[in-house]
């Protein structure tokens, strides 16, 4: 093809095309955020259906079959398509900026990791249209999840979707690790990295070690279901317990995958609004690594009641993991101690995180005590525990992060009054929902039941939890209204509206595609603080 042919033609590209094909970590971060909010709508609606059904004894709205699909899909969607991608959103947007990098190490892989999330999410919810979504619980214990007891297509779709979203996590983890190790700006040594970057790094290690193990379990289950395998079929020499071991080997660390970056967000916000450095930076880093390491030695505390676990080891390790978590709490409180605290919405959510995640930490210690676990395992106590960890912990930290970084992402400030209404509604709602669940568990209500006896004495507490659940749902109305009006006519944010400490605030809001025109000197973990107050890192080390 000679002279007539190829000449690049500058085509005008639409904004939509730009967003669909972007490899910019900031745009991908925003795409992750949007996708997570959409799936939050899905997962949240599922939860409200569940709560509506449980408000009173008797089956009012749902059949058992639908109920089982709803609670299975609620947990799956919230874990794999809401919380983990939300944290990936914050990590994607913020980490390259925090370490002074122009982008992630592998921008196209980054785009691939993102697009696998909504795609796999569509795969998993398609089950509802194809005769029934997965309904064996998000833990999918065989034999219940085998082809014999779950013959529908939902279970297969669930397996494939979770494998896909896991692959997305693995790609993301590799990307984060390479970015953090190879792309830090001059002067940004490991121990000057912001804590959020540290927590994303440790989380990436957990993902890289845990997720392939989950994928292997899913492959085995898929073979059992579709190709006559018997990995988990005791009738043919397999082992049903094997699944629980492999599944929890990933899924317990997954709790830390869902909490550590949130702790990182909190550790960025508290110092900014207390006008003090994080107390015990290095101890915090070691505590994060400690939680990550111990996280792989506690999986079988989910299996104490199976009678096939070496109890002393898993009990003592589960107790131990409370210690680094406790260290972090004292670091956070010492950061606020004698500070000058301003209560912006991100700070409110952060303090909300502290007060709620504390409950999730303490009520988890009960399960480390094996005899107590025998009494409360698989009851609503455990439901309360996991929601204080994942809602009171992870989700409040995500909201704190979104309020904190929204001005950077959009260039506009969110309205503080609406933010505070959102916080108040959500905080009261979450306690009204999940506090009564402790009492239900103690009273003997097992989890995952579609109906309960009207004479069991559980009616009032269930009604309270349902009212709280709808309050949480309502709390999103002021939030979305806030986002809408602020994007239209919010106050201009400027580069650094919060007087923050870290590099992402050293560039414009939103930052240019290349992130930085110039970087301040990096001589401590708070380069912007040093620049603002004309200090160097040497003065406070």
């Amino acid at each position, binding site marked *: 093809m000679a002279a007539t042919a190829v000449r690049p033609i500058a085509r005008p590209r639409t904004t939509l095309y730009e967003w669909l094909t972007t490899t910019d970590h900031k745009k991908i971060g925003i795409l992750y955020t949007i996708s997570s909010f959409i799936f939050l709508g899905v997962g949240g609606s599922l939860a409200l259906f569940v709560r509506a059904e449980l408000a009173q004894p008797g089956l009012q709205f749902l059949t058992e079959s639908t109920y089982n699909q709803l609670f299975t899909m609620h947990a799956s969607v919230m874990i794999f398509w809401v919380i983990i991608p939300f944290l990936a959103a914050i990590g994607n947007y913020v980490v390259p900026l925090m370490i002074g990098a122009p982008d992630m190490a592998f921008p196209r892989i980054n785009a691939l990791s993102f697009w696998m999330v909504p795609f796999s999410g569509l795969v998993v919810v398609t089950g509802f249209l194809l005769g029934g979504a997965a309904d064996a619980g998000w833990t999918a214990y065989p034999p219940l999840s085998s082809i014999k007891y779950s013959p529908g297509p939902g279970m297969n779709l669930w397996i494939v979707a979770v494998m896909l979203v896991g692959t997305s996590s693995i790609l993301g983890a590799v990307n984060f690790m390479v970015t953090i190790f190879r792309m830090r700006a001059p002067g940004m040594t490991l121990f000057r990295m912001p804590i959020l970057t540290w927590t994303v790094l440790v989380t990436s290690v957990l993902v890289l070690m845990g997720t392939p193990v989950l994928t292997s379990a899913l492959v085995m289950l898929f073979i059992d279901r579709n190709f006559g395998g018997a990995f988990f079929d005791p*009738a043919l020499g397999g082992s049903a317990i094997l699944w629980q071991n492999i599944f929890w080997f990933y899924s317990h660390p997954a709790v830390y995958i869902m909490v550590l970056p949130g702790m990182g967000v909190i550790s960025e916000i508290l110092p900014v609004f207390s006008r003090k450095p994080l107390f015990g930076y290095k101890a915090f880093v070691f505590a994060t690594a400690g939680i990550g390491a111990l996280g792989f030695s506690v999986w079988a505390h989910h299996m104490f009641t199976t009678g096939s676990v070496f109890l002393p080891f898993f009990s003592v390790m589960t107790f*131990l993991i409370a210690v680094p978590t406790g260290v972090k709490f*004292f670091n956070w409180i010492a950061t606020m101690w004698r500070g000058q605290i301003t209560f912006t919405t991100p700070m409110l959510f952060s303090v909300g995180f502290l007060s709620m995640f504390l409950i999730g930490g303490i009520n988890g210690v009960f399960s480390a005590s094996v005899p107590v676990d*025998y009494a409360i395992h698989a*009851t609503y106590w455990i439901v309360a525990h996991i929601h204080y960890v994942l809602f009171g912990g992870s989700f409040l930290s995500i909201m704190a992060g979104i309020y904190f970084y929204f001005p950077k992402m959009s260039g506009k400030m969110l309205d503080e009054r609406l933010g505070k209404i959102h916080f108040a509604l959500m905080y009261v709602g979450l306690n009204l929902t999940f506090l009564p669940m402790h009492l239900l568990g103690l009273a003997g209500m097992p989890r995952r039941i579609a109906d*309960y006896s009207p004479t069991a004495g559980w009616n009032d507490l269930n009604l309270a939890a349902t009212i709280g659940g709808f309050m949480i749902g309502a709390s999103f109305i002021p939030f979305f209204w806030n986002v809408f009006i602020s994007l239209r006519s919010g106050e201009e944010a400027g580069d650094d509206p919060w007087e923050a400490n870290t590099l992402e605030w050293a560039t414009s809001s939103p930052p240019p595609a290349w992130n930085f025109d110039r970087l301040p000197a990096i001589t401590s973990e708070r380069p912007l603080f040093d620049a603002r107050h004309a200090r160097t890192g040497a003065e406070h080390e």
Partner: protein
Amino acid sequence: MNRRYALPLLIAAVALIAGGCQAVSLRDPVTEQALQVRDLYNLVFIIAAIIFFFVEGLIVWSVIRYRRKPTDTNLPVQTHGNLILEVVWTVIPLVTVFLLFIASWNVLSVVDARDASKAEIKVEVVGYQWQWKFAYPDNGIEVFGTPEQNAELVVPMGKVIQVTLVSQDVNHGFYIPQFLFQRDLVPGHVNVFQFTPNKVGTFTGQCSAFCGLMHHAMRFTVRVVTPEEYTAWLAESKSKPSPSPSESPSPSPSAIRLTTSAAF
């Protein structure tokens, strides 16, 4: 405050606290083993409550006391850490959880005691979607649950009862809230536990491990009777044929093959 209201207020406060404590305790225990679990739970709860109020108090105090005032134009003291403090707040939790582990361990040796020679009554519990079968192999009695009539396990007070748990299909959980105890039924794996009922009465139980469609309806009861009543019940049950189950469990031989080996 007016003295007239002091006493009623005091009573109300005591009632509130007592009611609160009632709500946050486990159910009243009805076995020897459960008494110890209850005490252990109370110990863990008290320690947890102390930690909770201490830490939450620190948070609330910081939030109130250290708000930024209009006069706060200078930076606060930039404290980066304090080694002694950090060692202290690492070691104290470490010691606390270790003590809790020891306390749990002592109770576990009672709760998980399985001395077959001490067993006075042996029952076999079989779980299947979505009913229970209770069998007394020594007496040739089998009790099947039906949707209309929950299966009832009858046991004498004060005797050591040994329960063998077998599942015929998927995982189930044998859970009686007032025993403060549950143990899973896992296909391909036999679980055994013992309990000693110390209170006469009927106690409800239900499946605690999600087992599919009618999981919520998989209920049963345990009726603890005096040894004399138990003997009478045995005689009565043996004389009449056991009611045929509405839905026979009819296990395939392989489904209840008893093996403890893993899949390796």
